[in-house]
């Protein structure tokens, strides 16, 4: 597997995801500068990392979505290549049109860093196949603008096509849209593209891979990716 992590000015979790990839899959990703126009040859997985690209100024992800490298990322996705956008990466995917909808200020207007419970809604994506169906996992969140919103039609389409990959749930494993930590519509934490090769999610699987630091529920996500690419 060849992985590339895109570095925008203001990205700050590129090291976290790179070390998680290495820790779980043994693969050291290359770091690709936003102003570049090409991905390294043979790239299988593109990661848009967390952070505050361009300070989150204007709208989170808006300026990064228009960076030079994004044309290459779009082309990679169109070819069916895997793209993983975490947190700010998810915001960039939405702003760039690779995923529908938008992430706005948390309903309580505060940044929130805590462990969140998530239901893995489908296990037939390249990112989730190592999870048990309906598994409840624990990933941390760390964001001020993770409140997923889309127009009613888009939401209906996403639900109809089963494109919600992760949903916030309460301690009892059930979703409660009125209590969700950031106000996200339908408790959406992550969605996939039509062809299932692009995943955007707000929580941080990369911060839950090392038993020394806490739970390790994020490992299976990276194992899933590596597994898919090995077989390919």
């Amino acid at each position: 597997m060849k992985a590339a992590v895109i570095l925008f000015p203001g990205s700050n979790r590129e090291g976290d995801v790179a070390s998680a990839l290495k820790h779980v899959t043994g693969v050291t990703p290359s770091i690709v500068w936003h102003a570049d126009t090409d991905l390294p040859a043979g790239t299988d997985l593109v990661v848009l990392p967390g952070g505050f690209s361009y300070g989150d100024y204007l709208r989170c992800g808006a300026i990064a979505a228009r960076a030079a490298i994004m044309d290459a990322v779009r082309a990679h996705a169109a070819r069916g290549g895997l793209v993983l956008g975490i947190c700010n990466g998810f915001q960039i995917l939405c702003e760039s049109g690779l995923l529908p909808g938008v992430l706005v200020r948390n309903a309580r207007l505060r940044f929130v860093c805590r462990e969140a419970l998530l239901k893995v809604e489908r296990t037939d994506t390249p990112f989730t196949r190592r999870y048990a169906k309906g598994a409840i996992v624990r990933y941390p969140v760390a964001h001020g603008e993770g409140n997923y919103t889309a127009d009613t039609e888009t939401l209906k389409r996403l639900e109809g096509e089963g494109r919600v990959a992760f949903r916030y749930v309460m301690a009892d494993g059930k979703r409660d849209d009125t209590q969700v930590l950031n106000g996200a519509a339908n408790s959406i934490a992550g969605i996939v593209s039509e062809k299932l090769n692009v995943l955007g999610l707000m929580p941080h699987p990369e911060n839950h891979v090392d038993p020394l630091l806490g739970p390790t529920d994020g490992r299976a996500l990276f194992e899933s990716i590596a597994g898919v690419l090995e077989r390919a």
Partner: protein
Amino acid sequence: MTSTEPKITPELIAEHGLKPDEYQRILTLIGREPSFTELGIFSAMWNEHCSYKSSRLHLRGLPTKAPWVIQGPGENAGVIDIGDGQAAVFKMESHNHPSYIEPYQGAGTGVGGILRDVFTMGARPIAALNALRFGDPKHPRTRHLVAGVVAGIGGYGNSFGVPTVGGLVGFHTRYDGNNLVNAMAVGLADADKIFYAKATGVGLPVVYLGSKTGRDGIHGATMASAEFGEGAEEKRPTVQVGDPFAEKLLLEACLEIMEAGCVVAIQDMGAAGLTCSAVEMGAKGDLGIELDLDRLPCREEGMSAYEMMLSESQERMLMVIAPGKEEQAEAIFLKWGLDFAIVGYTTDNLRFVVKHKGEIKADLPIKELGDEAPLYDRPWVETPKQQRIDPASLEITATLPGALERLIGSPDFASKRWIWEQYDHLILNNTVQRPGGDSAVVRVGEGPKGLALTCDVTPRYCEADPFEGGKQAVAEAWRNITAVGGKPLALTDNLNFGNPEKPEIMGQLVGCLRGIGAAALALDFPVVSGNVSLYNETNGRGILPTPTIGGVGVVDDIEKTATLAFKAGGEAIFVIGETTGWLGQSAFLAEILNREEGAPPPVDLELERKNGDFVRSLIEADLVTAVHDVSDGGLLVAITEMAMASGIGASLLAPEDGINPFAYWFGEDQARYVVTVASGEKAQVLRQAEAAGVTIAKIGGTGGDRLNIPGERPLVIDTLRERNEAWLPIYMGAGLM
């Protein structure tokens, strides 16, 4: 020197915070009347904030050396050797006054400033902490300040990308008009690649890096040293807006040009901006500096030399670049989208010369600007000692369980989760112990080593007895590091006091410093950096003396750190250290009986060391399952915190006859820890305690879901936890946002 600048008048001198005798000193020093720009430069260099004129004399008494200290006070941050060729770089700094005026930006730029201090030394920041003191929760401004300060700290650190892993928060009416925001940052560097402010080499380019200069914060440093009065609101425009995005770019660019070997000397522009940084670089290297302000990147039009020299625009640096490296350095900065301009040169004449539009705006002796700053031996009086409180003399109507419930639900003891959940405490993937424990622990590189970090001080103690209070702050930081299994290495301090021109306040400062010095010496815990914030007074009333201590220790193996949560039922609970029932200045007395009285608990430094070393040895030998130091709130609060963190209850034994139960459970005797021990290890622990000469007593056992105090109604742990978690969110929720 120029006709366009204002004339120097006694009023203008006073407005610059310079006393008549200080102005006289300037006249003597330069042999003529200063220009307006020069007056500004002197006022910046000689104010309390930059010159430490009231505290310098007494700071000299602090122990600052140890074999592992690479750099003590005097640079942007302290540096200690943590083994394996690595160094920890850290410092704490206050942004109290700006945070009161504009809490979000004030606190945020405070974080920005301390991060810059750390990466200026060549270290990548790996953790941030903050010590916050607010006024009475009932004071109309308190909620607004809490919301703004917390959002500001988070807003800056989260965007910059450093985990904020710990700190402290307290409330007291004495901070009503003067909240405290003390921010600490810790970085990691190779021990042989530390960068300093000292310039070397004549004729080398002095380079300006980072964001452009605007009119922000002009006179900010002077403001930070001026007592607040009714007119505080008028000083508003001196607040700066922070740009964490620019700071993140500045970090990456600085580390990159350091790595490329371009940097001879580097100094961040903090308080008093360009003035302080340029003078310091030259003076430390015995060189002169000549600046050409026509080249300074400015954000606003028509800025005068005076404004440029005093601007406190954030996210800026000054460097001396190695010969022939200008182009390489510039390319790196342009890549990161930052300004880069050669604004001057080093000279060999020891003058600080500032040119603007073909005129010389300042020409001053560079060494004297710093060295000849006034130094005051201000008169001080010792704080009168108070009597030890006799528990028998107290009229207590509360019950033990009732008092405990009230204490853990009170502002100072309530969980601070609402705050630290607004801080990204996980970024960088190294947070081994998250907020909520005795010390935060962050992994160093790939491990197995880690750093243990904590902030501590008990202002009530310091007010009652500055010497014992100063000792206690250091001892508690040392203890908190020990409690997670760390070896305490060094500390940074942030001395927050009122007006030093009052002998009683000066007495607090002197007393606390002596206490800090004594404890730092006895515990081999030297002071490597620090900051002083004076004049924290409103309408003549000062804050409680608050010398915040930031402690750093090393954990050899992060797999072996201890945490405070109970691990299982059926384990024995021991207290290590002597319990005499010391209630003077205790939280129980203050919160339950509404009395802040008596002598605070004395700190026996030898005992601290003995007990702490013993606890650390137990952790290293894997003989204890949970560890918590006993600090304010006493034994019962410590046990309750261990229970709440785990959901596991405890059944306690009755104290020996003769001791007042309130004093026993809530007394704040020092040098104590609570530990739990699995049944198989009990005998071993007791044997080792005896061999070490350490006092140890079994006080109960873990198990169930309740806290059982003999003869009292049981308390359900979940209910206690709800109470503990409830206060802050409810308090803040009742507010605006």
